[in-house]
């Protein structure tokens, strides 16, 4: 009796996973197979999509670099040192993950548009509102927690004794970090960079709020998809979507292969 119930459960559970997988494949396949290859190539070479690809690459690389520059030291600090209010800081740094991107975008718009600091930056020539710079900031704000969490768990997984040994062998604190801990964290760093970059390329909500959706100005791939969809240019919209799918698949592959023990 119990044996039969077990096999029912088995069939049900496996079917659920198969149905889910089939659903995902169907959705992706419908997009990729929608336009014939020729028209996909044509729109890929069109001025608008080329611009969107270029802008997406530029902004996502910039925001990923920014994430590495800032989130890596922050993650190291949180993993290695104890300080007053560490728990609060930990929670705050994870906050953008839970925040709807649109809300983050509104906040960024107010921060850079109306706050004194935003005005000082604007006067210094750093204009974030309705510019590509705004896209970079939006991507950074929304995706920084991914980098931070991956690097924090990576650093936590590396015994500080490696650094102790390095220091007794003649390294300063910084040299021990650069020559031992960072190379040991390279898989986490790669996984974090890939996930941050691919999330950055797909970032829409926050970027829409602060940078707007202006054709040929702040038009990244997701924005292009949105603009073309709204005015019925399905071919263009689909090619933007197809490119985004390929980027996601490649990133997922790299992440799974090199992410190792890193967890989000």
């Amino acid at each position: 009796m119990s044996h039969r119930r077990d096999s029912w459960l088995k069939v049900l559970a496996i079917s659920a996973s198969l149905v889910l997988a089939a659903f995902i494949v169907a959705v992706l396949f419908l997009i990729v197979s929608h336009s014939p290859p020729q028209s996909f190539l044509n729109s890929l070479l069109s001025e608008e999509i080329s611009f969107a690809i270029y802008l997406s690459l530029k902004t996502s690389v910039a925001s990923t670099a920014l994430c590495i520059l800032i989130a890596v030291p922050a993650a190291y600090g949180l993993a290695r040192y104890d300080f007053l209010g560490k728990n609060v800081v930990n929670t705050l740094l994870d906050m953008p993950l839970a925040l709807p991107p649109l809300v983050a975008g509104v906040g960024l718009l107010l921060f850079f548009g109306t706050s004194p600091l935003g005005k000082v930056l604007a006067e210094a020539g750093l204009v974030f509102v309705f510019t590509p710079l705004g896209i970079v900031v939006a991507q950074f704000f929304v995706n920084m927690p991914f980098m931070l969490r991956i690097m924090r768990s990576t650093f936590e997984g590396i015994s500080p004794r490696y650094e102790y040994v390095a220091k007794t062998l003649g390294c300063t604190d910084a040299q021990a970090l650069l020559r031992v801990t960072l190379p040991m964290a390279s898989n986490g760093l790669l996984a974090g960079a890939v996930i941050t970059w691919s999330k950055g390329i797909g970032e829409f909500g926050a970027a829409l709020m602060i940078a707007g959706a202006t054709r040929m100005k702040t038009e990244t791939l997701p924005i292009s998809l949105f603009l073309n969809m709204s005015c019925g240019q399905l071919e263009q919209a689909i090619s933007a979507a197809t490119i985004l799918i390929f980027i996601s698949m490649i990133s997922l592959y790299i992440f799974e292969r090199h992410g190792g023990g890193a967890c989000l």
Partner: protein
Amino acid sequence: MLQMEDVYKDLGEFILKNVSLRVEDGEYLVIIGPTGSGKTILIETLAGIYAPDRGKIFLDGREITKEAPKDRNICMVYQDYMLFPHLNVEKNIAFGLKARKVPRDEIDERVSKASRLLGIERLLHRYPNTLSGGEQQRAAIARAIVMEPAVLLLDEPLSALDGLTREKLRKELKSLHSFYKTTVIHVTHNFEEVFSLADKVAVMNGGEIVQEGTPEVVFRKPNCEMVANFVGVENLFRGTCITKGDSLEIDVRGLRVVSTADEVMEGGEVFASVRPEEILMSKSPLDSSARNSFPGIVEDVVDNGSTMKICVDVGISFVVILTRQGYQDMELENGTPVYLTFKASSVHVF
């Protein structure tokens, strides 16, 4: 000479309470103590990983209390090797020399010398995760001694290894020490390491050094109950080793004790111990296959509650544990003649 004066360090979980310690040049100090007694924090403080809250540390007359680890020339080897996994063995060993900007050809020369000494010259191009535990620990030791440190700190260096490898590496540590004449501080909870390696032993408990001295003194004359319970070695004798056929005789002040232990060098000074509960006591000679049987007289009886500790003089003094029932059945008192019998395999030699 390395000297610690009233060093106090509180890490919350572990603590050092006013530790004072003096290690002469070239001396091999073994620190033993139960888990959590502060052994590791002691050597990490010596290495400069933690700054003491109070107290001072001197190395060759120079105060190093606040000096950065990199400037101390004190190297460390951990139980779990801590080889850098992204570097091959050669680069691991060369790591410190490179950090100190030693010229390239001198690095090559010193690395090959150290790896030859530790028998790992054929592993230089391998990565740590492809090596066995023993090989990894050799590489870690090579990485430290290649620096020719003023003091070498070993944190349970043999504890993660299997019995045979441990034995081998223990002997190599001894010959490395006599070769390099480095001052060594070796933390362990393995008594055999104390006897085979230590010039001096220090027992730690609760963040304090409770006793220090030669191994013989600490093990034979524990100065407090904690040390006595912790070292827990009764019937410990020093003697000269004589090989007879496939077994071994230890001459302890004229008394020949037979052991099945192998591998001990002929004519060498050894320690032998017999656990009190492995000794049979009888009033007449026992007819058994046991190869050690000695007549003696009861010297002293100590009541431990459920068990009785009987000291018997057979030329040397043995301690035997009897149950209260067994003691009463035998009707023992001071001066009663008895026989002690134990198997050759009960005699532990180190």
